[in-house]
């Protein structure tokens, strides 16, 4: 019972982290800029202004956007499928469908973070990776662990 609650809480936390990583524009930050994935926040005279992303490699940016959104979708789907399988799975069986969905989510966020690392801000001298980027990699680890858990876990047979 406790383990079940722990797994569900961890899964929900992972979904929240993925959503923050995808939605918040903070993959790359400098002193006055917080940018990426969807737009750029620029600090001018102590006011934040939102601008579009220009001069970015379009195809890669859109791929990162798509794969991070897909990771959120698959993680949420995995949660629903897990709850459904809790009630419908025959006893003693593994939660394979949930595990597969979570694995796909893990793959998607890995693709997103990898492409971002390889293609964006490769030659900039100042600035560093922001909290969204860090959260993306953390959720990669968490989704991977959860996927393994679902693929190994068996429904209690009494």
């Amino acid at each position, binding site marked *: 019972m406790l383990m079940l609650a722990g797994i569900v809480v961890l899964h929900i936390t992972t979904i929240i982290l993925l959503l923050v990583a995808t939605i918040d524009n903070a993959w790359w930050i400098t002193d006055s800029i917080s940018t990426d994935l969807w737009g750029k926040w620029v600090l001018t005279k102590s006011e934040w202004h939102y601008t579009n992303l220009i001069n970015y490699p*379009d*195809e890669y940016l*859109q*791929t990162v*956007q*798509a*794969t991070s*959104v*897909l990771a959120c*979708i698959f993680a949420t789907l995995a949660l629903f499928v897990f709850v459904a399988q809790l009630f419908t799975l025959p006893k003693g069986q593994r939660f394979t469908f949930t595990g597969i969905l979570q694995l*796909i989510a893990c793959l998607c966020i890995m693709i997103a973070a990898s492409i971002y690392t390889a293609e964006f801000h490769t030659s900039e001298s100042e600035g560093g990776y922001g909290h969204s980027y860090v959260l993306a990699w953390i959720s990669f680890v968490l989704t991977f662990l959860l996927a393994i858990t679902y693929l190994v876990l068996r429904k209690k047979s009494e």
Partner: protein
Amino acid sequence: FVFLPSYRLICTQTCTQLCSDFASCCVNACVCLSVKFIPDFFLPVPEQSQAIVIYTGWERHALVGSDIRLSCSFFSWRWTSEDVTFSWTYRPDGSRDSISIFHYTGGVPYVDNKGPFRDRLEFVGNPGRRDGSILLKNLEFTDNGTFTCDAKNPPDIVGRPSSVRLLVFEKVPIQAGVITGAIIGVVLGLLVLIVVIYYLMRFLVARRVFSLSVSKHGKKKKEGSQQRQGPVPPADPSKIKV
């Protein structure tokens, strides 16, 4: 004055593209995707509202070296006259002067034979159908600019010329979000497809197994009833009590 059953055309949606058809156009260089005809009463139509309205696109994008068709058509309450004229002028980006590059009058098109478009301009319109489109071939970067079409349909000559902006790219820029949407759509579609196929296979396999097991079960029942009258297991002599 002209007595007409006057209809009013109103746009019921926002306009996106070139209009070329009398029945589906509305004002100012766009086409209505749906149009409502509201019949007014038989009213005398005052001359002022009989201005000619000219339509071209708003902006056109093209690749270097490709061809592009700049379309121009007009709406006029009068029938298309034989003296209808079309004329195109070009103003390069950053310049304030415009030059005339095309003129159609008296049934004869006159294309540019001295200016920047010599040998690259062709008339592909149909004046009888109120179409005064031109074809620009082999575009160069220096062709960036504004093209203005002015059409006159005597006696309906009062109107405002319409302009279309040409942007020449080396590589056509991808519209925002097209790749994103495509990737998400394809992956989700594949997921749904795989799930459907999986459950379909399970259903079909289960049906086959069920029909097979029914026939097997029928056979087994016959054999089982025969076996019960078979040999009785021999009793253990050490356990027989005397």
